[in-house]
């Protein structure tokens, strides 16, 4: 302490002496961005002094009292700061470049923070990275770029599944999104071109400010604002196509006819009726979808105001027939300075139309395409509706997937308005009051029309059906905050924040359906055999927030925050929750003893804190009656009312305690940078719809929301980057690797295990299981060990006399040796979570060429391939995988082909009706997610008309290395729920795409 004091005193003395002795002068210059645009409002400060200035409207500045030994730091929001030793110069022009990786300023809750002062775990992605790759949704920009963040896309227009640092909850695991301070559930209405930067807040020290909403992490998005200076018009466009090339190998007509004969169905005559054709049903449902995007933006600013206006049109045809997405999005961001008052607004509006992938009979198009008889044609103009489907004589009732997809339509029209209006008043120097009103408003109309059709005896409808769901909702958030920022004795930097926030959410829906027997010409609702219901939902939250950030000379950092939160989703007894965080940081590189080291950055961080989760349905704590149990009495429809879903008045918050230790380092002037994070968290009282005993007869699936489990998650993340910014050839590489491991620590008293998740096609039982000491929802099922070759082998296990299991059946391991296969023989057969995930992003530029290549992957996870049932189970006649040709052939009770990979056809029910190891596959993959090559024409090519023109070509998902047999190893959890982790239900695979693009700046 004494030493430090001495050093400080000495330093002061030196500065003092220098001030007296050195010849001070005035430095002038301009600050511009790389394209030569002036940067107004850039800050210029002489290091270690209060001597500062800022640039004017033309980017010019003038700074008095500067000595030649001084170092001047130039900084501008979103760009890399530069520090320059004055030397003999009196004019210094500076060009500030945008960071490729670490932005200097990062957005945190209710403000921004300098990267050097961050004490939590935050990953950031800047607009340059976002622009590097053509993407249709903003979330995709995070994929592989932010360590510990996984993003999986679905069908066009659907929201991607985003997970931060693995699963710590069992319900909704989606992060909170905050767009310019507006809380929302996804980024669907936002054009990626409008994003300035995204921050992923991963630990409690950064997320605790959002209290009950921040359990799964927070993704902060700042949209691009107008810049002071002359107006700039930009135009960008891309066009390309996407396609799905992988197919399951299924039987052709000739193979199918033989297979059917083996199963007791002779279809030779039937196939001949259709001319023995061979329809490839998978080819029929996949297509090359064209995508195109046009984006126009204009930005300008005066001394006291800025504005940015943009419009985008995106049209994407899906890689599956009759799927697609179309979006118009508009954004206007404005700021106005009126003396000490600053007002502004950020408003985005989008209109979109989604044609989702359609399904029939609760089965996906892919399932129907696998199962359809290959000898049937797609079309038959003699049939009502024009399609050919199976009849009873085919003995196979898969639906014609082309008819399911193409007949009639389903359209989801969405309107979304997300925006805020704020006013910020500087009450005293350093003391600001800010009041903000945010709105997240949506309307949605989901309209489906199916005309009458008749494909054959299985699939026909003598009337048209129209179904429509109209939903509308709004969330209004009032934030009122006070911040006080000061520096005491030039070393003690203090920032204090207080916020009161109030969230008021309302939504409403109207669901209607009707059928019409008279004509197919009307695709609207008719009051003719109709149904109609509506519902109203309301949600309220109140939060009180406080935060103190303190640092001593940028070296020793402290951040403390607290939030007290109440949610209407919980009963009065458990309505309030308290959340806090504490974080410490030490900028070691700034210590004097590090002055000569090659470390340009070395910072140690540690944090701990708590967050909560109220993401359950509204009103779950109150007992309700359902009025939906009708029964025909006396010739009319008598309404029935009885108990609804079992209520739980003791519901309380899910809470999570997070710990994070981080080390940031940079060598050689930050040419090498990297960070290491270790985290662990413990989630308590996790909410889950626990299955009640079926025999208690509870409604709504027989579950009750309970605070059931405690789960711990731990892992580490490593990010390493190299930047070579010198010369004609510049390049950078960023690699990241993340692990996370979750384990159930305890379950509610009296509960030893809980089953959840989807059920296998033919069975009734969930196969994702919770158990203490195991990962969340691991796969629980039977072990298998080959195929019974003869009766002696069967009898050796079951004893003589039983007739269920026969030679050719799967040898399911009788773990308890009681000669009966029942659920007590089930065990852990797979883990849906990867050992680690990784990403490698390489960018390079040579003169006017730019290149980006981006690889992601996961390793060590298991996938439950539910399609296996349709491909291999052979429990009745459907088309199937060519693997069925290699099934066990049983003659007189003996398998004649011992090497057979599959059991006998139509064998024991238990072969496939429960989860077993044969459904589980290694899900590891490495994928070339993106490769882009661009060329920028010199600005003068077309005179001074354009300032910048860039062409590029880009390919996505071109190469995937995996052992997984399914169409795509990159699978999303259903609705983001933990209990469907790692289960491939045959949903929309990620397409390959090739895109050509053009960016123009005028």
């Amino acid at each position, binding site marked *: 302490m004494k030493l430090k004091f001495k050093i400080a005193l000495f330093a002061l003395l030196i500065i003092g002496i220098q001030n007296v002795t050195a010849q001070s002068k005035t430095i002038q210059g301009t600050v511009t961005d790389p394209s030569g645009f002036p940067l107004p409002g850039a800050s210029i400060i002489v290091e270690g002094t209060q001597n500062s200035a800022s640039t004017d409207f033309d980017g010019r500045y003038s700074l008095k009292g500067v000595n030649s030994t001084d170092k001047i730091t130039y900084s501008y929001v979103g760009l890399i700061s530069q520090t320059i030793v004055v030397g003999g110069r009196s004019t210094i022009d500076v060009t500030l470049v945008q960071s490729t990786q670490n932005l200097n300023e990062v957005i945190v809750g209710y403000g921004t923070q300098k990267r050097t002062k961050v004490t939590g775990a935050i990953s950031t992605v800047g607009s340059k990275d976002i622009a590097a790759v053509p993407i249709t949704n903003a979330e995709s920009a995070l994929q592989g770029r932010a360590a510990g963040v996984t993003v999986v896309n679905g069908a066009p227009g659907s929201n991607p599944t985003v997970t931060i640092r693995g699963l710590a909850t069992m319900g909704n695991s989606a992060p909170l999104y905050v767009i310019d301070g507006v809380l929302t559930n996804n980024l669907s209405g936002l054009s990626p071109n409008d994003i300035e930067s995204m921050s992923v807040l991963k630990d409690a020290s950064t997320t605790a400010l959002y209290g009950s909403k921040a359990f799964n992490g927070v993704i902060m998005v700042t949209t691009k604002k107008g810049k002071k200076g002359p107006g700039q018009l930009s135009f960008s466009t891309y066009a390309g196509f996407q396609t799905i090339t992988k197919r399951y190998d299924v039987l052709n007509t000739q193979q199918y006819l033989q297979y*059917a004969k083996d199963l007791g*169905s002779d279809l030779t005559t*039937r196939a001949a009726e259709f001319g023995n054709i061979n329809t490839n049903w998978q080819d029929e449902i996949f297509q090359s979808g064209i995508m195109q995007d046009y984006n126009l933006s204009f930005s300008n600013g005066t001394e006291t105001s800025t504005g940015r206006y943009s419009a985008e049109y995106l049209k994407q045809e899906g890689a599956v027939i009759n799927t697609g997405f179309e979006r118009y999005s508009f954004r206007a961001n404005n700021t106005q300075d009126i003396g*000490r*008052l600053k007002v502004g607004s950020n408003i985005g509006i989008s209109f979109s139309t989604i044609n989702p992938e359609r399904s029939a009979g609760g089965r996906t198009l892919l399932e129907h395409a696998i199962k359809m008889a290959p000898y049937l044609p797609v079309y038959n103009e003699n049939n009502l509706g024009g399609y050919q489907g199976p009849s*009873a004589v*085919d003995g*196979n*009732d898969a639906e014609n997937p082309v008819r399911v997809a193409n007949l009639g339509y389903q359209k989801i029209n969405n309107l979304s308005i997300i925006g805020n209006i704020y006013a910020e*008043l500087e009450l005293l120097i350093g003391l600001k009051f800010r*009041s903000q009103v945010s709105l997240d408003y949506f309307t949605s109309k989901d309209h489906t029309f199916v005309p009458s059709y008749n494909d054959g*005896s299985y699939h026909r409808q*003598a009337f048209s059906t129209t179904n429509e769901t109209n939903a509308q909702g709004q969330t209004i958030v*009032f934030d009122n905050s006070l911040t006080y920022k000061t520096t005491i004795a030039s070393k003690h930097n203090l920032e204090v924040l207080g916020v009161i926030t*109030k969230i008021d959410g309302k939504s409403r829906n109207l669901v209607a359906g009707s059928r019409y027997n008279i004509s197919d010409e009307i695709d609207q609702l008719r009051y003719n*055999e109709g*149904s109609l219901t509506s519902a109203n939902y309301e949600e*309220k939250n*109140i939060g009180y927030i406080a935060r103190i950030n303190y640092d001593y000379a940028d070296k020793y950092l402290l951040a403390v925050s607290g939030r007290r939160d*109440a949610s209407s989703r919980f009963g009065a007894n458990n309505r309030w929750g308290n959340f806090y965080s504490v974080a410490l940081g030490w900028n070691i590189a700034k210590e004097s003893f590090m002055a000569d080291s090659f470390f340009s950055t070395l910072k140690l961080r540690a944090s701990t804190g708590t967050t909560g989760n109220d993401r359950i349905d*509204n*009103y779950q704590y*109150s*007992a*309700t009656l359902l*009025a*939906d*149990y*009708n*029964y*025909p009495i*006396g010739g009319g*429809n*008598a309404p029935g*009312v*009885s*108990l609804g879903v079992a209520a739980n008045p003791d519901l309380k918050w899910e809470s999570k305690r997070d710990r994070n230790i981080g080390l940031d380092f940079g060598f050689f002037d930050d040419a090498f940078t990297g960070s290491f994070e270790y985290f662990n968290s413990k989630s308590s009282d996790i909410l889950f719809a626990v*299955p009640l*005993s*079926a*025999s208690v*007869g509870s409604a*709504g*699936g027989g579950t009750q929301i309970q605070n059931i489990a405690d789960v711990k998650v731990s892992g580490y993340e490593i990010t390493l980057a190299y930047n070579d910014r010198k010369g004609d050839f510049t390049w950078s590489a960023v690699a990241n690797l993340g692990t996370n491991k979750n384990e159930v620590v305890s379950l509610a008293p009296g509960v030893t*295990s*809980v*089953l959840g998740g989807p059920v296998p096609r033919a069975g*009734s*039982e969930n196969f994702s299981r919770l158990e203490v000491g195991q990962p969340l929802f691991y796969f629980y099922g039977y072990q298998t060990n080959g195929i019974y070759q003869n009766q002696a082998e069967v009898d050796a296990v079951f004893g003589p006399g*039983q007739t269920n299991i026969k030679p050719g059946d799967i040898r399911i391991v009788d773990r308890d040796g009681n000669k*009966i296969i*029942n659920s*007590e023989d089930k065990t852990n057969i797979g883990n849906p979570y990867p050992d680690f995930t990784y990403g490698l992003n390489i960018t390079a530029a040579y003169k006017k060429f730019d290149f980006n290549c981006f690889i992601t992957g996961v390793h060590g996870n298991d996938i439950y391939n539910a399609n296996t049932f349709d491909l291999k189970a052979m*429990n*009745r006649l459907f088309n199937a995988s060519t693997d069925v040709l290699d099934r066990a052939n049983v003659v007189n009770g003996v398998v004649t082909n011992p090497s057979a990979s599959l059991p006998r056809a*139509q064998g*024991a*029910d*238990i072969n496939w009706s*429960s989860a077993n190891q044969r459904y589980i596959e290694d899900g590891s993959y490495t994928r070339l997610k993106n490769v882009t090559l661009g060329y920028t024409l010199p600005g003068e090519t077309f005179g001074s008309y354009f300032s910048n023109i860039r062409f590029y070509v880009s390919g996505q998902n071109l190469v995937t290395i995996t052992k997984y047999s399914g169409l795509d190893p990159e699978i999303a959890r259903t609705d983001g729920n933990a209990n469907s982790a790692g289960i491939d239900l045959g949903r929309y695979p990620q397409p390959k795409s090739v895109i050509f693009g053009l960016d123009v700046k005028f």
Partner: protein
Amino acid sequence: MMMRKIKHIVGALFGILVMNSCDSSDLELRNPNTLSPDTFFKTEAQVESSVNAAYANLQTRGLYARNFFFAMDLMGQEAAGNPQLEGNKKPFQDFSFNAGNDIIQYYWESCYIGISRANFVLDNEAKINALPNSVLSQEKKNKFLGEVHFLRAYYYFLLVKRFGDVPIYKTVTIEGAARSPKAEVYDLIRTDFEFASQNLLSKTVEQTGRATKEAAFAYLGKVLLYEKKYDLALAALNNVTGFSLEDRGNFYNNFMEETEHGKESIFEIEFDEKNGTGNKWDDPGNSQGTGFAESTLRGQEYGNLSWFNVYPTDDLLNSFESGDERFAETFYVPGSTYLDGKLTMTAQNFNTSAGLRKAGWKKYQNYYKKEDEAVQSSINVKVMRYADVLLMKAECENQRDGGSQTAAIAYIKEVRDRAGLTTAIVPTKEAVFAAIVQERKVEFAGEQSRFDDIIRWGIASTALQGSGFTAGRSELWPIPNRETSSNPNIKPSNNNPGY
């Protein structure tokens, strides 16, 4: 000046907002979409609706809308599967089902949810009885309670026949109970049917669809017969009065929509698509009974012009004596006419990928008025016909001490006369028993009676020889895994023998 004004306004707004935010009583929200149990049972309509809800579970896919008829007809070897029969139904034909089978689960859940709905009403018995008679007359209070007792017994009867020992719940709870001995389950069923028989209204005055006094007596008799208490059973059955068989030539009236609730019909499971077609396939309610799905899939599933998932077995076809007029009303064969006699079926109408079938099902088909079956059928399932009462009475007379074979034969003769059969039955106990076995098999073909009958008679091993039926195992279904994985008081090791 401007600045000062703004400052004041902002300050005032801030004050208002802070005060507003502190008011946390805002957070007390009422669910506007549902009713609350606290304020219920105040009017006749409310009491009645709570009773109706207990009926709704009879219509689930787990029971009469879909799975039940498949499982029972296949186990009884009355029906056999065509190649297109679904994988979860096939195991019932060869008794290879296990505790993971979803049909068994939905059956179990459908019954227990029905029981829970009945218990919900009985839990509020005090509230209902406390209503002034001006709101709800004593007679109606009694009969509403009688209906839920009837339904609770009906569901427990479905359960005890399939699972043997089952957990008993007499009140709504969320705690799973252990299995109770079969005898205790039968005690509860009897008590409930007795209560119902004392409190329900007669069919002559009650609305169609509701349980009646006569239905309660008929089922009480049936339960007692299953318990082999023949004298008591006969006494109960003798209380079923005011019914007669549909006339000779009108046997099919029992299986059409237009002739529902006729003179032979004692209890029916109601379906009526005009009250709601719903969407059968996307409905999560395999066992919930929610929504407007008021129709059964039987017609489409069984119909030989439709999905033709099952066909009548040769054994069943051959069981009909020559001249039995019921044959042509039970089955379609090539040459049968349909659509009011306008169309005639050809051999090709019985074609499957596994070859031509001899016959298809006619009972409960809509072909008499429709060219083909759509997803929906409105035909009620006649679960208790007077023919059943007659044949049960015959069985009681034949089996009871001091019973009369002549009286028994008279009951059987009534049924056989209607079928146009004249062969006399020899008045010995064995011959009468054999006649009852035969008569029940053909009279109730495809009506989910055969399997129950041969089990209670103890003749399943011989009757089902070659089917895969294993004595000591196949008599009962396994308790579904869904129960053993969620009920701490029933472990997989507590399951029925062989599962």
